[in-house]
């Protein structure tokens, strides 16, 4: 590149709540470094109040996103992939910085992440055909079961797979019509921030995806105890004590909790278990008569 003496424009990294990019209401930031310990950026350190704001946005987002048609949800997810594809280079750089891996590996992760969004986009109008069914009850009734979105899901993204892991957590939550508040990898949040910029320029409903940066141990307890949060995805919670305490908090409103998987393999093709985890089966009966 020519003109190395140019003073670069540095980015101020912010949260992504309700489709906007606010600073943490606490005014706090924390330093993120690369794997060699070099300063990368100051990152907003989300507080409990930020989490609370995110829940309000997520609930609003849920109310419209959950009513969207399956076809529409699929298109919105696919649109995310399209926008991500246009920012591939930036993701690769971000991931390289964040995870200290080779350009090739970072590129592979980026490709996989985008492909995963596409994979889930394709599920939007199919998962209910696979997870739902009609039930042959013993009587003159039609009876069918369909999966519906659980509601507002608070998730912790994996700490070590900054983009693919993040996508693998949020896409299955979104595909069925849930909204999500996700806490990005604490030490590698920049790919998530780049993702939020993609989301802001895609067709995602405002508030439907909220990305917080900071410390899950600080933010999650208030989300786990928040009565308007319906489910927790603890995939990125590595501390067993934190996990246990979050589960205790979750019981206050009988939240569904998906625990951290053991040795997750983000490269592998997912099963439907993540979609299943954040859907509720609704069964409808109606008499059959003339």
């Amino acid at each position, binding site marked *: 590149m020519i003109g190395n003496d140019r003073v670069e424009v540095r980015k101020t990294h912010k949260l992504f709540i309700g489709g906007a990019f606010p600073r943490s209401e606490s005014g706090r930031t924390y330093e993120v470094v690369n794997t060699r310990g070099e300063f990368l950026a100051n990152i907003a350190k989300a507080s409990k109040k930020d989490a609370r704001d995110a829940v309000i946005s997520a609930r609003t987002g849920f109310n419209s996103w959950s009513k969207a048609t399956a076809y529409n949800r699929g298109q919105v997810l696919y649109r995310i992939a399209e926008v991500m594809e246009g920012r591939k280079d930036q993701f690769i750089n971000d991931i390289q910085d964040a995870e200290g891996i080779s350009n090739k590996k970072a590129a592979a992760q980026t490709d996989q992440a985008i492909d995963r969004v596409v994979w889930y986009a394709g599920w939007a109008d199919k998962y209910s055909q696979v997870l739902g069914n009609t039930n042959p009850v013993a*009587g*003159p*009734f039609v009876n069918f079961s369909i999966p519906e979105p659980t509601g507002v899901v608070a998730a912790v993204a994996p700490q070590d797979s900054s983009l693919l892991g993040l996508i693998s957590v949020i896409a299955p939550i979104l595909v069925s019509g849930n909204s999500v508040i996700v806490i990005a990898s604490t030490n590698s949040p920049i790919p998530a921030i780049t993702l939020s910029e993609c989301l802001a320029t895609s067709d995602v409903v405002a508030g439907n995806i909220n990305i917080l940066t900071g410390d899950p141990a600080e933010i999650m307890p208030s989300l786990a105890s928040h009565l308007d949060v319906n489910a927790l995805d603890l995939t990125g919670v590595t501390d067993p004590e934190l996990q246990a305490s979050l589960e205790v908090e979750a019981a206050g409103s009988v939240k569904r909790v998906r625990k951290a998987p053991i040795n997750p393999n983000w490269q592998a093709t997912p099963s439907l278990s993540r979609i299943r985890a954040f859907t509720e089966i609704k069964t409808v009966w109606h*008499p*059959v*008569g*003339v």
Partner: protein
Amino acid sequence: MSSLDNRPAESHKGLLAFLAGLPGVDQVGAEARAAALGTRSIKKESKIWAIDLAISMVDLTTLEGADTPGKVKAMSAKALHPDPTDPGTPSVAAVCVYGDLVYAAREVVGDRIHVAAVATAFPSGRASLSVKLADTKDAVAAGADEIDMVIDRGAFLSGNYGKVFDEIVAVKQACGPAHLKVILETGELKTLDNVRKASWLAIKAGADFIKTSTGKVTPAATLPVTLVMLEAVRDYYQETNIRIGVKAAGGIKTSKDAIKYLVLINETVGDAWLTPDLFRFGASTLLNDLLLQRQKMITGHYSGPDYVTID
């Protein structure tokens, strides 16, 4: 009352709107309710009581081409004294015959029980109004004090409710002092929504009784159909304080079945309807089963077909 068919539809607007506004009947729910009431267990003294009541509600019926004055007279004698071995057995409510045999029945029963005649081109109802009216008047003149008419199901099913209504009005007029039972022939109406509609139509047109069936079409009386008719009668009473009777005819052959109907009445319209004035069974073989059960309840041992009369 000249040409009814030419009467402008205007005069029926209110009726049509009323019928269209009736609440629907959910078939599955109605059948479940009727079936649930059918599981009531009626034992001991309540069973004896119910059997006597059922006997007193029977319209002992013969409606065959082969009917003769002799056959009708024999049946009428049985109607008066159903069980010759037990004079305590109640008489049935009425005998029910074709119009031309009313005289024979009346000869035997005098004015001790009612004589009902089917009329209006029974069972199909396929004749002109003038024939139906003549049929009715003949039967009344011969001594029938109850007329069981059939509605024009063709008119009903084609949506010509006004025609059905007007015919009932006209027949009611032709009945004079005789009570009018209007047969809906629910087996041809097919849906419970139609049963409800036809019940209201008949009641509004002046029926004293609404009756399920001719006995010539299967299915004849069923519990769900009777339930829906009783509901109409109940709701009409709520509105007007007037009690309309219900007759379940055809297909009721056993005491057990008859008691189910009594339970249905009891828990749908209440015990005010537990009288021959407001409920009838149109039946022939039912009576003998009621008598057998009655003998069993009184003597404590099972009876047999040779211990009741065949007529």
